[in-house]
Each structure stands twice: as structure tokens, then as C-alpha cells.
């Protein structure tokens, strides 16, 4: 086992470092630190930061869009409520106007009706007066007529009675 003995002779203590190995490990590590820091690490890190920035930006813009949408929605809701209030107000106003109009018309109609009734009453009274006057004149004339006729008839009936009596006596005499 010659190589073993040789190796053991080179560095008998497994805990103490051997100089050539130190040299190579220092070279390796120094090379790694320098090349990584100068050349290999920055692109990776830069890309990760760019991605972080992009995601952050996306989240921010999404957040902005959401806020904007909520604002617009609120605006529309406000407008809608305003329009509803306006519509209610207009309807209420129209109802009031109609009411006023109705009362006006009613009052006017009542007034006209009263006017008409008054005029009728006047005409009726006048007519009644006229008829009464005419009737009175006619009645006077009729009374005279009737009286004249009654008197005439009274006289005629007495003559007739004498004739009747005379006739009856003639009738009785002839039969005996």
C-alpha cells in the first residue's frame, strides 16, 4: 500500500489544512465571488426586480381601475337618484297644477250656473206678471158675458114656462 503511506506521509493529520488545497479553494471562491458579483448575479436580480416592479405596477393599475370604476358607479347612482327625485318633483308639480285648474273650472262653472238661474227666475217672474194681468182682463170680460147670458136666459125661461103651462092645459082639455 505504497500510495497510502505516501499520502499519509504528506499530511498525517486529517484536521490540519494542506497548502495546495487552500490555494485552490481560495482561487475558486475568489473567482466565484468576483464573477458572480460582476457578471452573473446582476442580470438575475435585475430580472427579478423588473418582475416585482411589473407585478406591483399591474396590481396598482388594477387597483386604480377598480377605484375609478367604483367612482363612476357612485356617480351614476347619484345621477339616477337625482333623476328619480326630479321625476317625482315634476309629477307632483303637474298634480298641483291640475288641482288648481280643476278648482278654477269648477268655480267658474258654478258661477255661470248661478247666473243662469238668476236670469231664468227674472224671466219667469215677468211672464207670471204678464199672464196675471191678461187673465184678470179676460176674467172680467167673461163675467160680464156670463151675467148677460144668465139674465137673458132667466127671462126666456119664464115665457117658456107659460107656454108649457098653456100647452099642458090645452092637452088636458082636449082629453076630457
Amino acid at each position, binding site marked *: 500500500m505504497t500510495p*497510502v503511506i505516501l*499520502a499519509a506521509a504528506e*499530511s498525517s493529520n486529517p*484536521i490540519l489544512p494542506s*497548502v*495546495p488545497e487552500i490555494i*485552490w479553494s481560495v482561487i*475558486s*471562491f475568489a473567482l466565484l465571488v468576483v*464573477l458572480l458579483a460582476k457578471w452573473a448575479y446582476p442580470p438575475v436580480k435585475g430580472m427579478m426586480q423588473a418582475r416585482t416592479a411589473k407585478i406591483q405596477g399591474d396590481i396598482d393599475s388594477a387597483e386604480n381601475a377598480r377605484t375609478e370604476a367604483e367612482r363612476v358607479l357612485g356617480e351614476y347612482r347619484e345621477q339616477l337618484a337625482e333623476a328619480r327625485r326630479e321625476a317625482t318633483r315634476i309629477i307632483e308639480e303637474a298634480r298641483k297644477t291640475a288641482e288648481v285648474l280643476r278648482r278654477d273650472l269648477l268655480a267658474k262653472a258654478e258661477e255661470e250656473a248661478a247666473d243662469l238661474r238668476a236670469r231664468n227666475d227674472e224671466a219667469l217672474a215677468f211672464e207670471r206678471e204678464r199672464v196675471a194681468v191678461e187673465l184678470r182682463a179676460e176674467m172680467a170680460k167673461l163675467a160680464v158675458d156670463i151675467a148677460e147670458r144668465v139674465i137673458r136666459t132667466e127671462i126666456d125661461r119664464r115665457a117658456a114656462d107659460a107656454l108649457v103651462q098653456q100647452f099642458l092645459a090645452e092637452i088636458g082639455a082636449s082629453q076630457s
Partner: protein
Amino acid sequence: MQYLAINFPPISEVLNWKPIFGGGTAIAFNKVGVITLLATVITLALFWMAGRQKKLVPVGVQNFVEWSVEFIDNSIIRDAMGPEGRSWGPYLTALFFFIFIANVFEVIPFFQMPATARMAVPAPLAIAVWVTFVVLGVKKQGFRYFKDAVVPPGVPVYVLFILVPIEILSTFFVRPFALAIRLFGNMLAGHLLLLTFTVLSEALFIKSIGLIILPLPFAMLTALTGYEIFVSALQAFIFTTLTAVYLGESLHGSH
């Protein structure tokens, strides 16, 4: 009991690799060097592939790399260093990937050796971290950094006589040692554990004895292989997190 005479190789044999070139010189290039260089090349290749795709919706390698970067950014840097720690992303990412890949070669066929199980790998990393956090602390806070680090506020003066030496020890001496030894010890132990069960399985198989108990070491080997992948990631995470914590203290002051 010659059937059970298992030839367990000595520990210096399983950890010393023959040089591929430059044998005997200071730049002797062996398996550990191959693995550390591969850790660098693989990390750079992953980042190059991920950075080249530039897809808005990441898939495959890009997804994996971005997930790792995100994880290091969020779970390590932000928690331990705050927003100012962001510029340390490449350094900590390099640490994490380097350690994780060097670790995970423990279970990759034909390599099957964690480079971090050789003190030559964790020790320079720990020293680099140590230098980084001390230099950053002085740069950010001046002399106050040392005062803040070793003199906790609201402590009676007589306690400081004991506390200051302890704090000096723990902050400036124990930290790098603990970093290096934690990583080294964990990976070496895992490596030896896998080796043990491999040798055991192999011996049982070759000697064609104990076929009844053969599945047991082999099942253990399989389970441990999965476990060691987890340990590789965990140790890389711990090392990177502690580094971030130390750097965070240098940025803001420890108390």
C-alpha cells in the same frame, strides 16, 4: 471470525487524494481542487443560464436560481441585516452556493467527497467572513464598532472585567473557528458515516456472507445519503446565516 475481518481504510487514506498535476508543489491539484473549481463553475453556469433566459414567468433553471436568490434575500439577508444588507446579496449567494455544491459532492457518484471535509476549504471561507465583518464594522462605525462589540451596555463596571475578555474571545476568535469547525466537522462526520456503511455493505457483498443482514447496512447507506443532502443544504444555510448576522452587527452595532 475471518469473515468479518473488514478492511476499514485509515482516515488519512480516505481524505488524501493523489494530485492530478503539480504533485509535490504548492499548487498540487487534487480531487478537492476539482470539486471547489466545479462548485464555482456550476454556480456561474446556473446563474448564466438563469440570467440568459430572461423569461417573465420563470421555468426550470431560472426558477431554481431565482428561488434560491429569493430565499437568500428574504430568509437570510432581510432577517439578519435589514434592508441595508441588500448589497451583500452576491457575496452571501456566492457563499451559499459554493458551500452547498462543495458539500453535496459528498453524495455525487465518482466524486463522493465533500470538499468542505478538508479544513482547506472551510478555513479560508471562515477567515474571509471574519475579515469581511471586521472591516465592514470599522468602515461603518469606526472604533465604536469594537467598543459596541465587546462592551455590552447596562452592565455594571465590575462585571465588565470578566465580560470584556469573554466578548473579545467570542467575537473575534471563537466566531471564525466555530464557523470553520462546524462546517468541517459536520461534513467530515457525514463522509465517514457514509464511508463506514459503504465499506460494510461492500464487505458483506463480496464475502457473500450474512446475506440476511446485507440489506440493513445498505438501507442505512441509502437513508444516510438522503440525510447528507439535507445536511449539505443545512450547513450551507447555517454558515451563510451566521455570516449575515455578523455582517448585520457590523452594519448596525450589536446592541
